């Protein structure tokens, strides 16, 4: 089977635009609604989906995604439910790449080998494990590789030129650039800093560069989409889910769709504007 990630990045490149990566926590606010949100994301123009595996102690996440984790766990989400949701989604969409993002302990508890088998069977494309740096990745990588799954590596503003080769060694799928030192959804990087970082990374790798952390508005997304291969938006979407869930609204997927449509339009228009100017 062809690799969904490389096919999707190639398709976006052919359109002369960046990909929009949207993050939601699986099971937020509950599994049924979350499955509808997943379909709403792609219907509204998300090119790649990052699906958060909920964890009790999301150390790298800001308030928005912490709350998403709490809502999801509160509704009883288990890793096996998340995998089942992906399998169900794959019945109607076999093209959109889905990356599971989270922390190592739930995978370790599930069993690395069993996780790789079941993740592949469900139709996942890879995983981002926030607290599994290259130094510890040998515990998971062989199982993922054996099943054609990517372990997406992260580079950050603290990744020096000396360290970058370590990060890139064994990297596949794409490289996730964490645009600011901090937690998700907090501060934003300037477009100039991002453009410089993307240019620097591109000198060292042919992998597509996705940029995330602190990207909340269509304007911010467009600015990053002008130079990066993909832009990741998470906390802004999770906030919409959170406030709608607090109101007990029954149109959460539609509200998410509206937000994502705006982001998708901005990402699609980002380089046209450049050309016009």
């Amino acid at each position, binding site marked *: 089977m062809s690799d969904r990630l490389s096919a999707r990045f190639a398709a976006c490149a052919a359109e002369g635009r960046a990909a929009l990566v949207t993050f939601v926590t699986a099971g937020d606010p509950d599994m049924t609604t979350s499955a509808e949100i997943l379909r709403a994301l792609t219907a509204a123009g998300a090119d790649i989906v990052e699906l958060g595996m909920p*964890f*009790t*102690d*999301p*150390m*790298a996440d*800001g308030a928005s995604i*912490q709350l998403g984790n*709490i809502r999801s*766990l509160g509704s009883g989400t*288990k*890793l096996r439910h998340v995998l089942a949701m992906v399998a169900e989604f794959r019945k109607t969409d076999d093209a959109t790449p889905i990356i599971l993002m989270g*922390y*190592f*302990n*739930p*995978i*370790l*508890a*599930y069993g690395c080998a069993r996780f790789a088998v079941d993740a592949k069977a469900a139709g996942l494309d890879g995983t981002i494990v*926030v*607290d*599994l*740096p290259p*130094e*510890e990745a040998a515990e998971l990588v062989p199982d993922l590789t054996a099943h054609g799954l990517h372990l997406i*590596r*992260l*580079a*950050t*503003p*603290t*990744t*020096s030129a000396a*360290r970058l080769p370590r*990060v890139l060694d064994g990297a596949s799928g794409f490289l996730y650039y*964490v645009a600011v*030192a*901090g*937690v998700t959804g*907090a*501060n934003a990087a300037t477009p100039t800093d991002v453009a410089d970082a993307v240019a620097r990374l591109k000198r060292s790798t042919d992998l597509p560069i996705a940029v995330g952390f602190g990207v909340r508005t269509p304007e911010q997304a467009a600015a990053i989409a002008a130079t990066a291969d993909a832009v990741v938006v998470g906390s802004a979407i999770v906030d919409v889910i959170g406030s709608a869930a607090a109101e007990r609204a029954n149109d959460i997927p539609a509200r998410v769709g509206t937000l994502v449509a705006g982001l998708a339009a901005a990402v699609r228009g980002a380089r046209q504007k450049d050309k016009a100017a």
Partner: protein
Amino acid sequence: MNVHAPSLRSGPDADGHFGAFGGRYVAETLMPLILDLEKAYRAAQVDPAFKAEFDYLMTHYVGRPSPMYFAESLTDHLGGAKIYLKRDELNHTGAHKINNCIGQILLAKRMGKTRIIAETGAGQHGVATATVAARFGLPCVIYMGARDIERQAPNVFRMKLLGAEVRAVESGSRTLKDAMNDALRDWVTNVDDTFYIIGTAAGPHPYPELVRDFQSVIGHEAREQIQAAEGRLPDMLVAAIGGGSNAIGLFHPFLDDASVRIIGVEASGHGIDSGAHAASLAGGRAGVLHGNKTMLLQDEDGQIAEAHSISAGLDYPGIGPEHAWLHSIGRVEYQSATDAEALEAFKLLCSTEGIIPALEPAHALAAVMRIAPTLAKDQVIVMNLCGRGDKDIFTVADALGVTLK
């Protein structure tokens, strides 16, 4: 012992592993920081000036060596082995925590860091960190679970008097593990100027190693003192374990002495079977949290469980990775004590020795109360009295049904 046996004191390995435990499970943003810290620590270890300043402050600021006290009245009461108390509760700030804080703030200074952060459970580590930050003129932020703030009001006030900002952590179980999450979030945001003083022998490498090394002053002193008092090594060491820094500090210099039985005491709260406890070795499984692989209280899906102990300092669902390893190889024996047993021990030390212990070492004493009467009178136990109980009088009053105004 067999002199050819490999030393148990040589860990961790180059990647920070103690057997299957330890390591560096942190976000990529933090990796360069902990690699820098390791480099700075290696340089400090071979710098005589660093050791000289540490030793000077231990003597003149902390008040070391702490006494090795023969608890004669307690020994008579229990009617068995001779019980010695390593009096680390007499240190400046009232617990062993200051030993580690002095070491880490000297590292911070060496690395040119200008801002200090820390997590705290009972508040002892927060007070010790606020103390050294004041002494060295650095701004300091302490993360503390909102629930711990309620039960440790005196220590919160102490930290504020010392100039620290205490930030209440409202997420999760609102205790020590959540405070550590927020401290890590702060560190990942303030990567250039901030030094994170971790309070126990846990977290990503090199923290478990360097905290152990700074706390080993306890065990090195104890070795000399007990040999001076008894002319030989003790038969048994006993210490309480939350993350396990006071215990590893006492144990580490004795690990290769096969004749010394070593016992760590976890907090079993309302009892292991109740599910409301903090005994991650007795009731947990291997997992990854807060930068290291260790034994953790967790459910079958890998979600971290909430710990319970009457002692805020032991109320943590994990344990330092070196203890997880020592447990796995059987060198150290781990027992547990309940809230109720710790309270009985607390009262016993007050009445027999005129010493009000912290609730943390009261757990160690509960184990001593069980074991000492079964041993011959010529046997020698050294127990680490790692903190004093002034901070706990409100919790104890509450548990005993006494209303203070």
